């Protein structure tokens, strides 16, 4: 028990001091936390419940837009703001900025949770790969529709105010926002999987018909699980909106083939349906991505596609699954043959 205590203590200490001992990597670390958040939340439905969504990115983009619209609406008229020319200057006061950010991010989370309830009610009737393709369609359609909607800036996207104090302080600010959300998502997932609710999710994954026959309202469980994960993704999207300052619909907000696929790859790389898998996968994937993006420019997508294929085809259990197989005693699993070997 004490060993675990030390482990988490060191981890939290590292999370707290990371932006100060690695000052050049503040934004990188913030992006890493974003990956961890989306990976953990993807695993809530994908790994634990067996519903592989390719459309969670919809909540990221929607979160971005909702947060931006709320923040702007507090101070100005949204339609005028998004369609203004460069000669009109909109100045946010500090209060407006922080109030807008706080309300915007929270509002993004709540709105995305509601969206998940509505979209989920329609799409959760689809099973297996149809669900994946249907949600992918929702995400692509969302991006296309928003990019044709002039009130929110159309294909140009929205620009938000810059962090009002110094730039480096802003980076630390966003790092801690992401880190706080990430830790909250992790702790929440850890708690959730230990409850009856988590057991019900696993039952749905293992055999949905049987779970229904046992008296579980599977639809209700699926909807709640997806809207919980959408809540965190929406918050992450809202924070991203303020961190990126400017974003546009197709490449940044509803980036279906970037982050929308990355989160799935993170989880598969780390190990589906495990608590630590998404976290480990996100870290490894982010390192891989940054290395290839820096040193194999032009070929980075080829490397990424290869990583997806290799992970899916040859390395199906992911890192955590592999560790469980090689070192089961680390996870408190007792293997008889190994003990017998030890005694003889």
């Amino acid at each position, binding site marked *: 028990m004490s060993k675990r205590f030390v482990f988490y203590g060191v981890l939290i200490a590292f999370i707290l001091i990371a932006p100060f001992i690695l000052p050049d990597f503040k934004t990188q670390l913030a992006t890493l936390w974003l990956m961890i958040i989306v990976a953990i939340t993807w695993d809530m439905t994908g790994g634990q419940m067996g519903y592989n969504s390719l459309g969670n990115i919809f909540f990221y983009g929607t979160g971005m837009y909702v947060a931006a619209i709320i923040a702007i609406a507090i101070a100005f008229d949204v339609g005028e703001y998004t369609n203004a020319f460069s000669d009109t200057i909109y100045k946010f006061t500090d209060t407006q900025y922080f109030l807008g950010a706080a309300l915007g991010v929270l509002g993004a989370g709540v709105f995305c949770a509601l969206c998940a309830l509505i979209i989920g009610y329609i799409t959760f009737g689809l099973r297996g790969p149809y669900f994946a*393709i249907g949600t992918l369609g929702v995400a*692509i*359609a969302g991006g296309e529709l928003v990019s044709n909607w002039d009130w929110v800036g159309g294909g140009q996207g929205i620009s938000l105010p810059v962090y009002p104090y110094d730039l480096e302080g802003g980076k630390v600010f966003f790092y801690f926002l992401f880190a706080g959300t990430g830790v909250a998502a992790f702790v929440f997932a850890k708690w959730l999987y230990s409850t009856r609710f988590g057991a019900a999710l696993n039952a749905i994954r293992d055999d949905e018909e049987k779970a229904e026959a046992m008296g579980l309202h599977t639809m209700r469980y699926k909807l709640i699980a997806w809207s919980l994960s959408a809540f965190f993704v929406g918050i992450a999207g809202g924070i991203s909106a303020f961190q990126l300052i400017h974003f546009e619909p197709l490449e940044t907000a509803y980036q279906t083939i970037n982050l929308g696929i990355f989160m799935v790859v993170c989880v598969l790389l780390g190990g589906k349906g495990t608590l630590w898998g998404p976290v480990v996968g996100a870290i490894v994937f982010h390192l891989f991505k940054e290395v290839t993006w820096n040193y194999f420019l032009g070929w980075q*997508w080829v490397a*990424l596609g290869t990583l997806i294929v290799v992970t899916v085809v040859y390395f199906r259990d992911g890192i955590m699954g592999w560790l469980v197989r090689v070192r089961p005693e680390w996870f408190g699993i007792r293997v008889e043959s190994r003990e017998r070997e030890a005694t003889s």
Partner: protein
Amino acid sequence: MDQFLANISLLFEFPIVNLKIVIDGVMIGALFALSAYGLALVWGVMNVKNLAQGDFVIAGGYVAWWLANQGVHPLLGVPAAFVVLWILGWVIYKLVITRVIERDLFTSLLATFGIAIIIAQVLNLLFGSDTQSIALKYDTLYFMDGFIDVPIAKLLGVLMAAALATGVILFMKWSRMGQAIRATAQDARAARVLGINTEKVYAFTFSLNSAICGAAGAIVVMVWVIQPFYGITHSIRAFVIVTAAGLGNLPGVIAAGLGIGALEQYGAHIFGIGYQQAVAVLLLLIVLLIRLVQQKRVRKSLQ
């Protein structure tokens, strides 16, 4: 909104416009139907959902385009793309697909998505990200006082697509391999017991699918445009068609393909060209919803 209404009222004022849209749509839809047929083939025989379908189409298009730039007659690009994509499909089968056949469908979906990313990016690195097409030096036929124009190149494309489809259908019906493929689709285990080498059948089916897509792409480049990243839209269209028609329903696939082509042209006419992708995706959602409602009805009758 007024713009949309004006576009719709135009359709009623000049019914001839409808005819033009439908003809355009059907000519494009014939090509969608080809790649959708390949998807239905692979889906039905080995239960793999191939998300790289559209990228095979685009790759075939680039083969034909490259050959045309070397001075080869564009029409010869179709068989060339067929052969090149056959080889590519066989290599991909041996490297990846053979290992995902027995696994759950999401695995094959993701694995082929990875392949799709690789193909699109390699094409982008080789040929650049501009849109490309081959201009054929044929006349255009005019009907109805010039209201309806049918370029002979497009007509030729449709005819080639029809010839290819007929060839594949006859092959599936009469050849030994075609019979083996259909037997494997019905029951792989029984086929294996009866001495069919299913591994060979799978490899053949996947290569055939990839070759059909390649030939379709070689026609697409003559009648339309290609770009390395247009593949995903072609894949989505193929899914829409197969989902709407159902597996193993060949007339359904053809009808759905032509219908999707026409609907997309209508969407482009009413909402403007900016919505073309959105229309394709929304059609997918609509088809899935209709299927869902149908299933609900089936489930109710069971209770």
